[in-house]
């Protein structure tokens, strides 16, 4: 069971975020994503001259009267609501439990909860999914499911695993065309047959008109700064390198920099072109990650805002 801090954003903050995003148009549908129009919302957008086929119930007679003759009826147009399914895959392997005090997993949960709380009031559905392991997904369908969010997070947080098996079987039916697949990970999983399967699935999703966003949580700048130089005894959550007592020097740090980049690039190259939809969240190097850091990063992220923008 992971101990989770309370989401630093309120529902009001998130509603504001959605309204602001909805005022903007999505610049382009990257990754072949197609928004699906379905019905109309109650949000008034503009008046327009009546055209054959318009719903007579939407004619604003008073406004038409003011608008001169009876031939020019005015009908109310509403903001079209684009409803989508957001699939959030969270990497819950042990490395996500670091660093302290705010772990990558904590940020992943904050992020997932924020997006869920933005998506659900707009009648979108959200799916929570463990990227690794064998667990079933948790699906929240519409605004009524908003109150089930804490329970869903709690159930989801009880499961962390070091299982290297990519959890793709349970995901199949939850990735219809036009779905958005957000993968939150630190990319520290091994590049092997399992991760190759994941890369292949990402590519297939992309080809099937799903929008895949790879959100990388990168705490290395912060952990590197905290590690410093000198004699150190290294440990991971469930992993101890051999040898684990090292004299950390600049050369060694440079070598590790290189190893990390190489490790990530192996996977990112395998998932191209989804790699272009990569969102890179870095931990600040010299200060601890806090809830304020999260708020700032979340509000500043243009890519995530696009999820809730209108299509042109």
């Amino acid at each position, binding site marked *: 069971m992971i101990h989770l801090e309370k989401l630093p954003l309120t529902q009001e903050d998130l509603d504001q975020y959605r309204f602001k995003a909805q005022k903007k148009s999505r610049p382009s549908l990257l990754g072949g994503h197609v928004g699906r129009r379905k019905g109309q919302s109650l949000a008034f957008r503009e008046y327009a001259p009546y055209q054959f086929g318009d719903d007579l119930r939407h004619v604003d007679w008073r406004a038409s009267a003011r608008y001169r003759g009876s031939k020019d009826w005015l009908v109310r147009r509403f903001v079209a609501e684009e409803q989508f399914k957001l699939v959030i895959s969270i990497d819950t392997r042990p490395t996500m439990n670091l660093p302290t005090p705010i772990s990558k997993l904590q940020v992943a949960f904050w992020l997932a909860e924020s997006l869920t709380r933005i998506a659900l009031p707009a009648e979108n559905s959200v799916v929570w999914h463990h990227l690794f392991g064998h667990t079933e997904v948790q699906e929240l369908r519409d605004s009524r499911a908003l109150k089930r969010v804490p329970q869903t997070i709690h159930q989801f947080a009880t499961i962390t695993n070091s299982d290297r098996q990519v959890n793709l079987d349970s995901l199949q039916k939850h990735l219809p065309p036009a779905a958005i697949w957000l993968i939150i990970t630190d990319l520290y999983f091994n590049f092997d047959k399992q991760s190759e399967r994941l890369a292949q699935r990402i590519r297939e999703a992309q080809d099937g008109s799903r929008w895949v966003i790879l959100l990388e949580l990168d705490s290395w700048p912060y952990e590197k700064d905290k590690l410093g130089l000198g004699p150190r005894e290294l440990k991971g959550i469930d992993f101890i390198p051999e040898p684990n007592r*090292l004299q950390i020097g600049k050369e060694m740090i440079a070598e590790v920099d290189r190893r990390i980049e190489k490790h990530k690039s192996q996977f990112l190259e395998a998932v191209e072109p989804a790699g272009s939809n990569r969102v890179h969240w870095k931990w600040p190097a010299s200060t601890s990650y806090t809830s304020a850091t999260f708020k700032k990063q979340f509000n500043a992220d243009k890519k995530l805002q696009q999820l809730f923008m209108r299509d042109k």
Partner: protein
Amino acid sequence: MIFVWLMGGFIGLMVVIHMARPHYKEHCLSQAQFFVDLTTVVETERRWRPGNPLRSYALPLRLLFLLLLLVAFWLTFAERISGQVDMRQTVGVWLLMDTSASMSAVQNGQTRMEWGQLEASLAIAHALEAAEGSDICFRLSTFDMARRNLHSQADPSLLLNLLSQLTPRPLGTDVSLVRTIAGELSLDDGDMEDNIETGCPVTHLLVITDLPAPDWLAEINSVPIIWRDIAVPVANVGFTDLYAIRDPITGLVNNVHLEVTAFGVPPASVQVTVEGPTGRIIMDEQITDWTGAQVWRNSFTPDEEGAYQLRLSPGGAYAYDDVAEITIQGLGQLSVDWQLTDTTLPNLLNWHVVSGSQDLRVVAYDRPSDSTVPTLFVGNSYEHLANQPKSILDFDEGSPLLTDVNLDAVEQLGLTGPELSTDFIPVLRGEDDSIWLAQRRNPPAAYVPGLPVFRDDNLGRFSTLVFLNAVHWLVQQQPTIPLYTLTSPDQPELGDGRLALHSGEGNTATFPFSQGELDDLQPIRTQHEGRPVWHMLLSLAAAIFLVERGLAAYGGGRWR
């Protein structure tokens, strides 16, 4: 001093080692996998850093471990050295002086206590002479029926002073006390602790008494025991036994028996005088014939209650058995308020029938029962026996009325029983709920089915037995007062009915038998050593070592 330097050197070395070794700070990284096999770039620099020892949690443990090891090593060495040094010549005399009543016997013009004090002063002088240049110390205890420790570490002058104040007490002698002390000395731990506490290690046990050395001395091998019997056989005549001959039913004193014993050569004539409470001479006998075991026995019949003075003249060397004062209470016949028409029984038992007697009242069962005088209610059941046996319903097993009663035989009698008042507790009941025997505690009363029938059958034996049981219980409600009591460690003073007729104290004619001589009080090499502690330190060091290793294995880098 060399050990201090050695210890400091080792500790300093350990601190230097901790200064030289790098302190590996523990760090948990999510990128730990990327540090695998980075040995090629491990920097092996070693720097002198004063902070390193402070950061190492293990250093204090290691220093403590080292310190304990060094101290334990030093102690083993020091204890060995100190043991050799303390192997010194010592005379530690534990003097046990007999203060029993027989030490008051006079021999050669002085009491045995005075002879004992003289022997003790001689012993002290011998010990002082023998311990020239050695340590010497004295402990003083006395024994009679109890042991008294007077001083645990007395110098000779104090010891002589204490000895001079000793006087015999009118008590017997418990020689087992000496054996107990000897036994204590054979228990090494207890002895050593005792010795350490008192500061006087006992090398010799000197017993000064008028009793011959017992056989069990040979079994004691803890310390040499010098047993000095200062007795000289002297003749003595004394009372050795005084007891009352009492009525078996009532417990009242009928006669007083005297026993006078002569120890050694008896005098030609000894006068025995018994003086009654009013000063009347009840017995005045001359003992001239000491045939047999030199024991003279006689008795007298007291005619009134009170204190009787018994005297022997001449009494011999031991004075405590020459005179005795005894107290007689409860005397003569039983007076009975016999309210039955048949007076055969009281005449037969020589009871004094007095109307209104407070000793015992015998009445028919249907008479009022409210008197406070012990009352025996007599029924008439023996005249109305059933023709067939009756089983017993229940009985009070602890009742004195059933003493020696054969219940199987009772069932054959076919007894019947009357109605009794409710304050009676049934003692024996028949199957038809008829009460055969009953008693009442307060005021004391008993019910029996009838008077003894004087027949040689079950009914005769039962009727006599339960009648006498009932009378015995009723008249024994008052405790029997003994003629005298013996002195005891709690009440060693004579008077108030206490005598000093302790067994063997008057036998002053035995030949002395000592074991050991005062010349045996020679210095003995003793080893003064406390309880060794080095092994405890070693155990502690081992425990710390285990803890340190455990923490090094599982406690993380700060413990390495």
